[in-house]
């Protein structure tokens, strides 16, 4: 039935920007003094006609290693930019524990998501706190990772003045990063908002048991300056 409203899917392409625009920016901190520039595409899986496709969101990111255990980064959603909305995420990633055998490394990442549109000059701020584990395997630089992002919405009102009941959106992510001296390649899967029903809205997300949305992302990063494996 929803195929007749297929064109509204485009509307939701933008609606899904906020929490599902990019893979986890950095999982493992960069080496001190090194910088990485990356790009990614992908988004939540939606039904488009008879096919299921990831929403083709795109973004770029730059990160810098301040310490071996601390990296700062800033990302920009380029798809939003084309719609007149500056959407950036600025954050740090802090390693808490080193990997020890099969015990994974643990990192924490507070992020500020800032948005501003040129049409009505509206500004939004959504804080985010990510926590991840990662494992190098077989003595390689590549690693698997998994973790959870937590988006916070401080708004108390929605557009019609009714209460904004959702103040926490969890996102579970799992991915793999292939690491070479100059380039990293990443594939990541997210489960966005598993706590929320995906029924009775204008788009058909691909979730689990009618909840949330599965997202698929691809990215790469180019690294320069001080390079060494940790």
């Amino acid at each position, binding site marked *: *039935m*929803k195929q*007749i*409203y*297929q*064109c*509204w899917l*485009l*509307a*939701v392409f*933008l*609606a*899904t*920007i*906020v*929490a599902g625009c990019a893979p986890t920016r950095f999982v493992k901190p960069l080496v001190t003094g090194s910088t990485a520039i990356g790009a990614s595409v992908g988004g939540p899986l939606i039904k488009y006609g008879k096919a299921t496709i990831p929403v083709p969101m795109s973004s*770029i990111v730059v990160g810098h290693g301040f310490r071996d255990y601390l990296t700062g980064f800033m990302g*920009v959603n*380029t798809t*939003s*930019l*084309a*719609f*007149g*909305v*500056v959407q950036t995420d600025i954050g740090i990633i802090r390693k808490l524990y080193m990997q020890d055998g099969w015990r994974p490394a643990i990192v924490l990442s507070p992020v500020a998501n800032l*948005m501003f*549109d*040129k*049409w*009505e000059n*509206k500004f*939004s701020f*959504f804080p985010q706190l990510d926590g991840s584990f990662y494992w190098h395997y077989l003595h390689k630089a590549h690693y698997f990772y998994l973790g959870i992002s937590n*988006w916070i*919405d401080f*708004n108390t*009102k*929605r*557009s*019609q003045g*009714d209460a*904004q009941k*959702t103040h926490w*959106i969890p996102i579970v992510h799992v991915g793999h990063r292939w690491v070479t001296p100059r380039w990293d390649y990443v594939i990541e899967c997210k489960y966005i*908002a598993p706590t*929320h029903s995906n*029924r*009775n*809205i*204008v*788009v058909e997300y691909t979730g689990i048991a009618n909840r949330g949305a599965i997202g698929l992302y691809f990215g790469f990063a180019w690294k320069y300056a001080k390079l060494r494996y940790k």
Partner: protein
Amino acid sequence: MMKPILALGAALLLFTASCLRLDDNLFNNITTDQYRFDDTKAEQEISLDASYKIPDSLIHLVPLVSGDSGSIATIYAEYIGNIAQISTDTVIVYFHGTKGNMDYYWNRTKLLAHVGGKNHFGVMTIDYRGYGRSEGKPTESGMYADAEAAFKWLSANGLIGDRLIVYGFSLGSAPATYKTANPGVLRASKLILEAPFASASVMVQDAAVLAMPPSYFTNLQVNNAQQIRNIHQPFMWIHGINDDFLSISTHGEVVYANHAGLIKEAYRIPGANHVNVPAVWGLEVYKAAILAFIRG
């Protein structure tokens, strides 16, 4: 140093030059060279038997000139009934949904033409600009102008507001609500909304979960939930409880609650989704409810 500056410049250029908006996505229009009425192959959401056939003499395709702030378009309307009796008949103006064109709503308009008996009320529907044979490109303001063009034609044929019933379905709830709240040549006596949406921003927020300004996505100002605060005429609201496109709770209930008048009726239809309310409710029950509201 030059590369970051160039990247920043490119980003600023993209931002300032950006013009992509989602406004056009409100419309799911299909053009046609010819309206086929009973011969249409367009998908119908409800089925009607042969007893609902309308005599050819009572089916009129009416071209209208619609003006929207300097943008003039010829649009097309269907009038089911005797045009000569508009000066004495009660007329239901049906504003259809976003899908297709008037052919896709042929059975719905025929059903309304049988409320109170065959051709008891006159029924008019229009194709907004960009739909069916109507010229131009669909826009929000154009949709309101097209509705006014229909009212002007009815007025010219003798209709007065006291005998005008406005019915909006889904997207059609926008022109129905707006023109009832902001009347032009005719002031509708009653308003019926089936599966209305509250506003474009609610659609977006429903999908995004987070409370974000609608201006991030669209410049559309459609806001039935706000417009209906200015409507004091009797109001009938019908919504499928299982509407999986426009949620009854975030859309329909808000519109109903905001109606400012004293007389209003709500029909929440169990088992019905966005498009099949008359069929699930039962055609006879549906017609009887519409009739009772119009006569009440």
